[in-house]
């Protein structure tokens, strides 16, 4: 149709409707743009920078930048994937990510994205931050070691559950972390429930339903058979 709005993404015409971001339009068209903090159900946070693309030669976050007719967007170029890989390596060294014994392994967006971008090692020195586990809640375990500060739990708890259980706080690379909104700072002292939207929003292995780890065998986990770039139209947890 002559009046259809399109832009070019890696040389391919992508249709969009006014107000859609580049990320939303790409997802609707089934094209994968690597990302961590973006979730289709929530407003863009724009913090992980993994979805950075080049728009008419300039860098921009595809999750926050609105699509414009005729724009030329580079996505899966060697240059951009190289930068994304470096960002991923920084995510891995800033937390304590031990995939071999992590129950989220095979279902983890961070791990699946690292496979997609062929990250072979963390490259940088590990920070080994001290992030104690909060196991106080009867049904939910919080393992902050794996937090990538995407703040999806903050948004989901506030916007969907109406509970405001989580908050981002602190400063600096070792100081910034997720806080629990209770006097004790413990999840058990909030009204958080395993049925909350926030309980199933975490893209990594921080918010975990207790006593369910490793119940799904290897081979049947989300990313075992199909890589993340082929699950663009699949519903995201």
């Amino acid at each position, binding site marked *: 149709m002559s009046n259809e709005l399109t832009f070019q993404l890696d040389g391919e015409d992508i249709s969009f409707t006014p107000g859609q971001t580049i990320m939303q339009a790409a997802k609707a068209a089934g094209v994968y743009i690597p990302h961590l903090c973006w979730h289709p159900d929530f407003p863009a946070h724009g913090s992980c920078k993994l979805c950075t693309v080049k728009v008419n030669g300039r860098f921009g976050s595809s999750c926050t930048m609105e699509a414009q007719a005729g724009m030329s967007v580079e996505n899966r170029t060697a240059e951009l994937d190289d930068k994304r890989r470096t960002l991923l390596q920084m995510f891995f060294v800033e937390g304590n990510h031990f995939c071999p014994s992590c129950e989220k392994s095979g279902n983890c967006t961070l791990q699946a994205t690292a496979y997609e971008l062929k990250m072979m090692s963390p490259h940088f020195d590990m920070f080994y931050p001290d992030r104690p586990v909060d196991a106080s809640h009867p049904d939910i375990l919080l393992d902050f070691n794996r937090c990538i500060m995407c703040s999806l739990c903050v948004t989901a708890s506030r916007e969907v559950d109406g509970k405001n259980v989580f908050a981002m706080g602190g400063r600096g690379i070792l100081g910034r972390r997720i806080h629990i909104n209770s006097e004790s700072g413990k999840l058990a002292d909030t009204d958080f429930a395993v049925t909350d939207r926030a309980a199933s929003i975490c893209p990594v292995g921080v918010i975990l339903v*207790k006593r369910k780890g490793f119940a799904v065998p290897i081979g049947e986990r989300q990313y075992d058979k199909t890589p993340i770039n082929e699950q663009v139209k699949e519903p995201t947890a």
Partner: protein
Amino acid sequence: MTFELETAKSPETLRRVAIDPVSRVEGHGKVTILLDDNNKVHQVRLHIVEFRGFEKFIQGRPYWEVPVMVQRLCGICPVSHHLAASKALDMMLGVKQLTPTAEKMRRLMHYGQMLQSHALHFFHLSSPDLLFGFGSDVATRNIVGVVAAHPEVAKKGVLLRKYGQEVIRMTAGKRVHGTGSIPGGVNKSLSTEERAELLKDIYQMVAWSRDAVGIIRGLFEQNLTQYNAFGRFRSAGMCLIRADGAMDLYHGGLRARDIDGKPLFDHFDYSRYWDVIGEDVKPWSYMKFPFFKSLGTEDGSYRVGPLSRVTMCDHIPTPLADKEREAFLAFDGGSAAGATLGYHWARMIEMLHSVESIKDLLHDDDITGHDLMATGERQERGVGVIEAPRGTLIHHYRVDENDQVIRANLIVSTTHNNQAMNTAVREVAKQYLDGVEITEGLLNHVEIAIRAFDPCLSCATHALGQMPLEIAIVGADGTVLDEATRDHRGLTREFGEVREPS
């Protein structure tokens, strides 16, 4: 048991030969030998010098993560740790009886593990010593040398191990470090296709396992005097035993016998293992020295593993292996059953038993069932014991009301065998090194004694012939008098080549 050669009377006047590292086992192993000016051996110690700390860093972790995490203790027998931890946490969850499918899937996984580990231990790691001779050329004393000189033997070894790995992959999800066993049960059963795939080759595996028993029997017949005497010592022993006295590698009560073969305890409930086993500490090793409490630290050491299991069980519940057990016990008036190298013979009998057990399980329809998990009344603690390839393995956890592990104690097979391996190493040093000029070939005898117990101490050497080895003769004042080094290319500097001052 005497601890002769454990501590020299005047160590300051002696020179020291160190085999460092022997290779990895819960950290690095090292053998030190103290000699006087006439090369007479005065002290021999096997040190485990690296601290692992799994018991500490598992603290605070959720209990369901434990079976997956602690199996990283080992790359050869991770399934044993995976299952011992699962059994301990079954007990913590109050699960007294697994579903038939879960128990049989775990047993299948365990027998697959026994098969691949025993095949690796015998064919890849130990057969070069046995087939070529203890002091043979180091350049060919490895699995590549076996492939060249005995291709049929090597092929059987490699394919037996591969089959075991496939059993593990289909039960645990991966060949190494899988997730199949979870507290309370398993997360998968065998599919019809997987079952058919394994059934296809099982009879070939039975035949080859019988051949393997024949190989080690033949080696004993050919080298009877040497094999019987090599590192020989008398020892107490311990293993798990089924209620009817049969060998059971997955579950049972503890059976122990003293140095004269008299019962110390039998069918002992392992959930209170600390009533009968203590753990002694020595200043020169990070590895503890377990002992039978009734005999005390001086006389209470014991050995575990294939030799203890095969000689202490009343029978093996699969026919071919039981026949081989009888032949082993009867051989030369029972001489092989007390020999350190008898471990290899017993190991091959167990491999045959494992393959026979896999065959039986594959013909059992429960293996494809769908009832995978059981529940029970939660307890504070759990103890899981299993017979790992190298011997009895104990996992013990306490879990708090938040599901976090607050205490862990692991007594692994190598630890049970610590004193026994030290004794074997001393016997070999006394037999072969006392009063003679030391060479690489003679030092290999020391490693052969360790390998009879534990390939974890030798995997780097014989897997690819790449174990870096440094042997230094150190004077009483600490100066290096002579040294030899071996890197991944073989022996590169021999004794007598004077070290350049640094």
